[in-house]
């Protein structure tokens, strides 16, 4: 029903700051897309441009194959849920949800039916006559979602809808949004967050933005397993991926890199011979590193400068030669390793990442 397509979209504010540069994105009908990125990277701006609240400085936005750059928000078939909920404080829950339909001059009976259906779905029926100020944060959030639902939009837009909720409620509401998506498989949903757990759990595809550019688009696992560059690698996953500067010693089907004079690693990553002797970045996720005994084959070894016990896992901060930053290794359960111990770390070859001097990923074989 509703594809959303952005072609060469730009946003330049009046003060000549280019907030978004050349965004190209193809969103398919029924997809759940999540925009993530650090604060100020332009997620909200992009969402608001799709909604029509913000003008598009250049490029085209198509919804359902129709260019809608100049179409007002109300006619784009979208509904938006704001971070602050933006409920109308002087209207009851019922009137809040009915507002858009009243504006559209829908018949009373239809309005009533739709509002009640949405209220039912979100367990809001008992609160229909209340004013927003008499609701809890979670209930307000649900009203905001209900208000979006009754419009039966083609595209749902969410701007950090959960960021005002406490942790438990956030999990519950997250699941509710997931259910909502399941019950409306035809609706496209675009969701902005800077919480990567939300992104990973909700998204069909994640769009990772940084400084006005799209860094990578892909399914959560794709971004996790095949980050296109160092930025994505470090943004997705917690703790962030270890990135260690290195030098390419040997190119080919198996690239050999050296982290320091004493440490070289054989990676299953293909490089062209032209890359020979270039600086690069070796990446490995903390959860992929395992502590091995001295005799076994290891990638590198170093002194533990810090141990964090989380209960279900232990984080080791290891100083290794050739790297300025400490390498983090995440081990299941509790360990007897202490600060000052020397540890040997190993990792499966298929979990290794290699980025070129411009921080772009080399393709991994297989």
């Amino acid at each position: 029903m509703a594809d959303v397509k952005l072609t060469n979209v730009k946003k330049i504010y009046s003060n000549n700051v280019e907030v978004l540069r050349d965004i190209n994105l193809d969103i398919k009908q029924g997809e759940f897309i999540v925009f993530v990125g650090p604060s100020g990277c332009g997620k909200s701006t992009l969402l608001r441009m799709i909604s029509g609240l913000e003008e598009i400085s250049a490029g085209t936005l198509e919804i359902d194959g129709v260019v809608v750059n100049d179409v007002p928000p109300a006619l784009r078939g979208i509904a938006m849920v704001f971070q602050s909920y933006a409920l109308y404080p002087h209207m009851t829950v019922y009137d809040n949800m009915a507002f858009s339909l009243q504006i559209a001059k829908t018949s009373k009976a239809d309005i009533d039916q739709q509002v009640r259906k949405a209220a039912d779905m979100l367990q809001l029926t008992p609160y229909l006559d209340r004013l927003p100020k008499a609701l809890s944060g979670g209930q307000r959030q649900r009203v905001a979602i209900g208000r979006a639902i009754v419009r039966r939009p083609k595209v749902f837009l969410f701007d950090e809808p959960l960021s005002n909720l406490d942790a438990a409620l956030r999990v519950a509401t997250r699941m509710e949004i997931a259910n909502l998506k399941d019950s409306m498989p035809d609706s496209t949903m675009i969701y902005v967050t800077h919480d990567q757990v939300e992104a990973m759990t909700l998204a069909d595809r994640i769009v990772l933005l940084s400084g006005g550019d799209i860094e990578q688009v892909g399914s959560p696992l794709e971004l996790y397993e095949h980050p296109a560059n160092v930025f994505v690698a470090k943004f997705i996953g917690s703790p962030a991926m270890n990135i260690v500067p290195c030098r390419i010693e040997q190119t080919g089907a198996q690239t050999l890199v050296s982290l320091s004079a004493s440490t070289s690693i054989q990676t299953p990553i293909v490089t062209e011979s032209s890359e020979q002797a270039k600086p690069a970045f070796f990446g490995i996720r903390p959860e992929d590193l395992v502590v091995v005994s001295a005799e076994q084959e290891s990638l590198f070894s170093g002194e533990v400068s810090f141990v964090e016990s989380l209960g279900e896992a232990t984080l080791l901060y290891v100083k290794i030669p050739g790297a300025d930053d400490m390498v983090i290794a995440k081990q299941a359960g509790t360990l007897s390793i202490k600060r000052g111990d020397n540890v040997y770390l190993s990792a499966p070859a298929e979990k290794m990442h290699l980025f070129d001097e411009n921080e772009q990923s080399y393709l991994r074989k297989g």
Partner: protein
Amino acid sequence: MITSSKRTPLTFLVHATVLFLVIIWTIPTAGLFISSIRDKNQLSTSGWWTALSTSEQRHVARAHEPKAQVQEGDRFVIRGNLFEGSAGEITKFGSSSLRPDEFDVGTVAELKKGETLQVLENGDYAFSSPVPWKGSRGDRIFYTAEVPPRFTLENYREVLNSEGLGKSFINSLTVTIPATIIPILVAAFAAYALAWMRFPGRALLVAAVVGLLVVPLQMSLIPLLKTYNLIGDFFGVGSKTYVGIWLAHTGFGLPLAIYLLRNYIVGLPREIIESARVDGASDFDIFRKIVLPLSFPALASFAIFQFLWVWNDLLIAMVFLGNDADHIVLTGQLRELLGSRGGNWEILTASAFITIIIPLCVFFGLQRYLVRGLLAGSVK
């Protein structure tokens, strides 16, 4: 708000200071009110704060004319009462302006040519003379009396009975009510446009409104009067009409109305307005259904101020509405009273108090909106 400072010396200080300020601020009005219900003689001789105490007053009265005399034995006597119905207690009396308190009450004063005068506490006096009284005027009696406090609505009756006050009351309302509502309506629309709509020249307009805030309205009167006369002639209705003064008050009140309302409306949460826009509301819908209800406290507050300004205005009414009976407003009427009855404190005080009553009712009726807030923060 600051719960920790409850019941400390500071709190006591706060109570004391506020009480002190409230007293200072109320005293002048209280004085006016008390004065307005005092007896007019007392009013001009003693301060209003003495209203409750018995006052010692010096008075002079004339005895009855000689033709009221009666012969009692060999003497001719004129009797009467100095108070003539009102109450009081005389302490001293005299017959010459040089020594008005020569005699104590009750004594029989020996005057020239065998005449005697006796004045009793209750005001009864008796002039007596061995020969018949002559002339057409009674003699003067000076006396000092302790007069008990006396309150009366006489002053109000006098003011209200005077010509045209009731009518000017209605005239005032006819001016004030539309001159309050119209500018609010016009200003609210303009304030919304300046706060939330995008159009070329907006910044310029905001600047212009702020700039026009400071135009002294006296300056406008001459050019406007000229134009009013032209327009009035054109329609054959004369230059002094109610519509004319409504628009004048609207024009003069607009800059401040737009300025204050825009400040408020700009502070409404942006997301609420955007949300309405996404919901398909046009700017007119947003204004009517979202902004107007949410700005109600601000509108009410401004209404109070505009009402007070218009009601208390004299200048614009004088210039644009005139002084004929069909148009004169309360303040104008009172000014005329002041002109014709200038020295009469009792008229001044009572009439001043009458002008205050309606504005006070408006204030007390609507003050909860003032308290609820004129500026942003209503939708926290």
